[in-house]
């Protein structure tokens, strides 16, 4: 094990970790605000990246416009998911499982649509700084990956501030913690849920435009990302955006280190064993709360 190899695996682990964490972040946001497990989170990223591709590559408009519209597309989709899928289910007194199933259906629909219009090929989205790499002890890291890490951290901090310090953020938390209490306090719980889904969509779209340059846009991208993101979110406690990023990084690092220290064949075994062990020892995740505080 040389220093270069160790450094390279840590860099790979960090990069992948933030990818997982960014999706997990979206899942945490939606769960925190609406108590819904959003199986479509990875597909929101797919939509964001597809829109960015169409704008920036197919139409040749500036990359920054593609990025922004990709994020917005995610937000709009989140809004539509709430209005068209979540609201009707809630009206029919859906349980937590129903919401999960509905979003899972949405995930498949998005994936199939992308397959229909784009086929099986993978598409390359240019990253920030193109393919430029940075040298770290003779190991390499993409400049874009560094940006991804920086922006993800920024998003986490922004969300923390949003939930703790803004009236709307606090109202969104209240609406999810105790909907009836919130209603009697004048909070429009239905709108809060819509905004949570839209916020989750924005985060998902952002994840898409940041992650796509690293893994290529492809119709199966959504579900694969959702699975990893879900693992990251669970590790982090499912309601904490910071926890999701942290969980993702742990997962990414464990995977990468397992490959270089044990064997590439054992990568998933090691990572999933760790996940199971943590969930047994700390069912609330690394940053979640034990049980629910009543009031």
């Amino acid at each position, binding site marked *: *094990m*040389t220093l*270069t*190899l160790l450094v*390279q*695996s840590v*860099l*790979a*682990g960090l*990069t*992948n970790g933030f*990818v997982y964490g960014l999706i997990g972040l979206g899942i945490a946001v939606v769960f925190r605000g609406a108590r819904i497990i959003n199986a479509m989170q990875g597909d929101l990223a797919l939509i964001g990246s597809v829109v960015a591709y169409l704008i920036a590559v197919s139409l040749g408009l500036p990359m920054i416009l593609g990025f922004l519209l990709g994020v917005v597309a995610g937000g709009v989709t989140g809004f539509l998911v709430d209005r068209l899928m979540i609201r009707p289910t809630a009206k029919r007194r859906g349980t937590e499982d129903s919401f999960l199933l509905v979003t899972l259906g949405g995930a498949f629909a998005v994936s199939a649509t992308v397959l229909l219009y*784009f*086929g*099986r*090929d*993978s598409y*390359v989205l240019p990253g920030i700084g193109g*393919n430029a*790499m940075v040298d770290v002890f*003779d*190991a*390499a890291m*993409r400049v874009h990956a560094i940006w991804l890490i920086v922006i993800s951290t920024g998003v986490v901090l922004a969300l923390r501030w949003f939930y703790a310090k803004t009236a709307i953020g606090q109202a969104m938390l209240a609406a999810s913690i105790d909907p009836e209490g919130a209603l009697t306090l004048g909070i429009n719980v239905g709108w809060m849920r819509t905004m949570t889904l839209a916020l989750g969509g924005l985060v998902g779209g952002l994840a898409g435009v940041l992650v796509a340059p*690293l*893994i*290529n846009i492809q119709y*199966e*991208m959504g579900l*694969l990302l959702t699975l990893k993101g879900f693992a990251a979110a669970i590790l982090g406690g499912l309601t904490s955006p910071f926890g999701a990023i942290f969980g993702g990084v742990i997962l990414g690092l464990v*995977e*990468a*280190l397992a*490959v*270089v220290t044990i064997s*590439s*064949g054992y*990568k*998933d075994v090691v990572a999933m064993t760790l996940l199971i062990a943590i969930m047994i020892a700390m069912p609330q995740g690394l940053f979640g709360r034990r049980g629910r505080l009543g009031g």
Partner: protein
Amino acid sequence: MLRAGLGTLALAGATIMSPMAQAQGATGEPLKIGAIISLTGPGAGLGNPQRQGMLLAEKTINAAGGVNGRPIRILIEDDGSKPDIAKSKAERLMYDEKVSAIIGPSLTASTGAVAAITNAEGLPTLCFTGLGPRIELTYKSLFHLLPAQDLNAKAMLEYSTKELKAKKIGILHDTGYGQVVTNQLNVHRQAYGVEFVAIEKFEVGASDVSAQAAKVRAASPDVVFVIATSAVPFRNARQVKIEQPIVSAIGSSTYDYVRGFGEYADNIIYPEFVVGEQPKDNQKAFVEAFQKEYGSLPKNFEAAAWDSVHIIAKAAAKAGPKAGSKDLAAAMRGSYPGVMATYDFAKDDMTGIELSSYVFSKLVKGKFERLSFTTK
């Protein structure tokens, strides 16, 4: 999307051509040939080029008067990359349509399913896969148009040892196609006197394999084998600064895959059979005709399909119009100088392709260049 358009054009062309072919002299009862290939599903990257090749062959043969005056008609079915669908399509073609021969399938599992059925009737079946399980050796009517992975592995080792003078090789492979080839590489390792200093694997859908690639790099190989059907390992290998030459296998050399490599489509060597940019002399006519028909360059799978139709046509002409399945199969069981390769179906491996048929190409900035290296 472009391909779908061209495919429709080709199909339309073939349908329009047939009556015209009749006008030019191919009359009489058509010689029906069934084709079962993967047009959808994971094998679509193989099946679609195969379809283009066989349709062009049908058109060309009919324009030249067909088989002793009879036009050929190819009935194409999609097995969706699933063996059970392949099996039911085979039954339909055999019993309902009463085809004289079957071309395909594209994937090994489907071949297993189809061959078991066609063998019962002795119906000649020309598949686009290499020799599979042992039982296939007992199928008297089965012909393989692509080499076994055994041969692919040897071709990779030939180039690496004879041209690149490698002693230490690192392998980065996926658990599907890559595993199959790697198994064969391990079998022939000693004979070529090389050491595999790193063998790293990853699952087929993996989105990032940088850690595995880094481990291969750390072993300081002379040459790196990347065997997979996705662009990811090729990109990651170069990103973690593997500067050694990369040798890959025929399964990832189609233009579709190469497009996904982006700017990393460089300094990658493929042992294959057809390099459309610089075809061998006996391939030139086919390449020109293909380019004229479809506006793009053909590669291995298109050529194999073209060959398959011609093999049947030649055998049918030799065996005569009254020939049954057994006679047709017997007429095929010999050598045939194809466009893709020189076959000898009488050989043990039921293909007869030799290392000498291999052509070595190098990807240079996204374009294929034919190398002068041969295995003779």
